[in-house]
């Protein structure tokens, strides 16, 4: 076995040992979410998203890449090895169980074999893109609370920009239906994905924490500006 593989396996096993109760909760919520219709389903969906965010932040921050008092940095492993170990854990603990739960639900619901894979890839591709900024936020902070505050700040900034732009455009939020906003989604997803990957690359590869923070801020502003631009064209 190579050194990086030994280290990745160790990180994976350690995270599993520490976070298995939360992994079980997430897996149970995936199964429930897939099978429950109506308001109960929406409640479980919300709980599931919350548990997933909590697990992502906890896994990344167990070996936080930020700050100076981090003894893992003195071990002979590269930050990339650490990141790959973490992403491997998140894939095994969140992505795969979620895919299995949805696959089971689709099979039970009678979805044809030809439609199974495209549905899975579409749903979970979006989930992965949504997870990227959460991973980036967790990497930029050292505590769950700090990650929460950062997430809240981004959400508030976004809401302010949206409401200002809607007022300027003389529109109401009801007019922001999926049909109108549909062209915006791929652009926004691309910005968020590229920005988040850049943040993680800066943070884990050349270890440039300041540049990673700057990239995060620019991504958040760019995402808000993109939404504003689309609203102004309504």
């Amino acid at each position, binding site marked *: 076995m190579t050194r990086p593989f030994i*280290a990745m396996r160790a990180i994976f096993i350690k995270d599993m040992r520490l976070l298995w109760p939360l992994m079980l909760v997430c897996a149970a919520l995936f199964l429930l979410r897939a099978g429950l219709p109506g308001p109960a389903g929406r409640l479980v969906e919300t709980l599931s998203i919350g548990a997933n965010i909590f697990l992502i932040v906890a896994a990344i921050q167990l070996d936080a890449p930020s700050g100076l008092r981090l003894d*893992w940095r003195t071990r002979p492993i590269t930050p990339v090895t650490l990141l790959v170990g973490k992403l491997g854990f998140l894939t095994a603990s969140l992505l795969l169980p979620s895919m299995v739960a949805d696959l089971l639900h689709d099979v039970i619901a009678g979805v044809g074999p030809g439609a199974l894979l495209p549905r899975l890839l579409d749903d979970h591709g979006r989930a992965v893109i949504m997870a990227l900024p959460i991973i980036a936020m967790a990497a930029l902070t050292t505590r769950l609370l700090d990650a929460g505050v950062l997430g809240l700040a981004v959400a508030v900034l976004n809401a302010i920009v949206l409401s200002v732009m809607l007022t300027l455009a003389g529109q109401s939020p009801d007019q922001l239906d999926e049909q109108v906003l549909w062209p915006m989604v791929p652009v926004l997803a691309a910005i968020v994905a590229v920005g988040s990957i850049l943040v993680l690359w800066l943070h884990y590869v050349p270890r440039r924490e300041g540049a990673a923070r700057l990239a995060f801020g620019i991504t958040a502003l760019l995402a808000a500006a993109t939404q504003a631009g689309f609203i102004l064209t309504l």
Partner: protein
Amino acid sequence: MLTITGLFKTYAGGVRALDGIDIDIPRGLFGLLGPNGAGKSTLMRTIATLQDADTGTIRFDGIDAFKDRMALQRRLGYLPQEFGTYPRISAQAMLRHFAALKGIHGAANRAIVDELLVRTNLWEARTRSVDTFSGGMRQRFGIAQALLGNPDLLIVDEPTAGLDPVERRRFQNLLSEVGEDVVVILSTHIVEDVAALCPRVAIMADGRILKSGDPRELTAELQGNLWSGIVDKGGAGHPGAGHQVITTRRFAGRTEVRVLAAQAPAGFTAAAPTLEDVYFKTLIDHGIPIQAE
């Protein structure tokens, strides 16, 4: 041999933590003494590859610490002032995890971890979580994780702060055992630890190395010029102006004053110089405020 040349570091707030450090550190235990805020921890973190300097170089047996971190990290053991542990994981499991991060796996992993648990006297507590350890046990666990992979360069930052005398002695014995064949840098503000363990010492303050050498030679410099006397509460017995007071300290309910002078002040007797006298004299000579009694 660890060679540090022209090391400077200024933090974003303008605090100059390292102000031109130049020093060679040979194999064996090396004590780095200094008051709080001297820059010791910054120096330790920089040697341990945790942070970069603004300018300067650190070389260990030909390895450039800034250009080839990984090569240095393979030979490095580091016990920081405060180290992170994972909750609810036993000492044995955590050491196995750290050993794997150093590339040690399988039977070798189990063997080295078990050996270190025995050596640090933690075998009986191996299944307990490190969270539940006392301060001394925690520090012994810290040295065990630092010793994984037989490092040639061991950095221990304030390891005995907060330990009771028994645990402190036990930790000193452990350090002196491991410090025979490798470079061990012991950073501390506890002079007794360095005096007990280190054949070489440096005194640091304001980001600079003020003095370095063999403690015996450093203390010999004061031989014949150091005097001790007892002063009462009213000041009777005080040597008066014109004498350099090195320390005043309470001992057995009385105040002992140690002064440096060519001849004994009235009522004073010759005192055997200690590393603590050298430490305080060095700080006073460089205008560093000291918090002595």
